[in-house]
């Protein structure tokens, strides 16, 4: 399942790709953790990267398509996880209307809190989510994330929306979230989940 691609930059881990389905999310987390540590992320940021990848991977196989693909690579000075499926998500309300009707739109919101940037590219062939974690922060301790104030989303060309997750402080975007809101999925979708309809 896990496979190495072409060699990366000197001293950096090779790109790593794997296919996964809903019963392979644990493997996704373990592969991501190993790879991100080799890429040079400190332990706390490895954890955050793993959380982000896991939540997006779960959304991909839950709302996108039964099987999806993960590609891990270093681009520039960042670790990048690309999660690609052949479905179409997120649509406003999609997650709240999931199989158990209860999950809310929390996975994407959590990914945004956990990693530096989330970019969603949607098209007729499926949905791709890029999760970036800067390696320039490697010397810093793991950030305490979640901030009520955060950077505005950057709308990229086409159908993508990018949300730099900066200006984080303890207390969190979700700190006022009541547990029943979380459970009932009644919380509005964050701006990161809005995107233009595919052309």
């Amino acid at each position, binding site marked *: 399942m896990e496979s190495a691609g072409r060699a990366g930059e000197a001293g950096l881990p090779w790109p790593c790709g794997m296919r996964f389905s809903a019963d392979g999310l644990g493997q996704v987390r373990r592969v991501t953790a190993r790879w991100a540590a080799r890429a040079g992320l400190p332990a706390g940021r490895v954890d955050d990267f793993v959380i982000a990848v896991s939540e997006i991977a779960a959304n991909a196989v839950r709302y996108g398509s039964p099987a999806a693909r993960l590609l891990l690579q270093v681009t520039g000075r960042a670790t990048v996880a690309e999660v690609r499926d052949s479905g179409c998500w997120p649509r406003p309300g999609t997650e709240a209307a999931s199989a158990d009707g*209860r999950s809310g739109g929390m*996975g994407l919101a*959590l990914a945004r809190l956990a990693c530096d940037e989330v970019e969603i590219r949607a098209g007729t062939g499926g949905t791709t989510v890029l999760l970036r974690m800067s390696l320039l922060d490697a010397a810093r301790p793991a950030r305490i994330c979640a901030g009520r104030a955060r950077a505005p989303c950057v709308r990229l060309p086409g159908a993508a929306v990018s949300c730099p997750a900066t200006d984080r402080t303890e207390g969190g975007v979700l700190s006022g979230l009541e547990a029943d809101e979380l*459970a009932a999925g009644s919380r509005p979708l964050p701006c990161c989940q809005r995107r233009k309809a595919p052309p």
Partner: protein
Amino acid sequence: MISAGLGTRDYSGHVVVTLRGELDAAGAAALMAVITAAMARNPRIIADLAALEYIDCCALGVLGRVRAQARQAGGDLLLAAPHGLVQRILTLTGLTGVFSIHASVNEAARATGYSCPQQDAKVTAGEPAPGTGR
């Protein structure tokens, strides 16, 4: 999915639900069923997370619903011994300010100030005696 299952036991007037392994959407329904059954007996619930390595948003939602239902029934759902990625997810989401979180099952039970000696150490699902956390 839940890689190693769930267990329940009675402890000091509470029902302790032990979550183990990795818990994501595939295991959320089983978690809901186990906790709902436990809550029917006693709405004072402690979720023992000492052996839980991961929990995703869907399963967190189950805990949130159970907490709301338990409180409506006059009880509560407390979390005991979260660590690692589970603790980090609770922090990231701000749910550390929503749930009552304790270092161990024992501390959670003490924090409620409620005990029912007749039920102490009654094991209902082949569980060992209550531990002190992770």
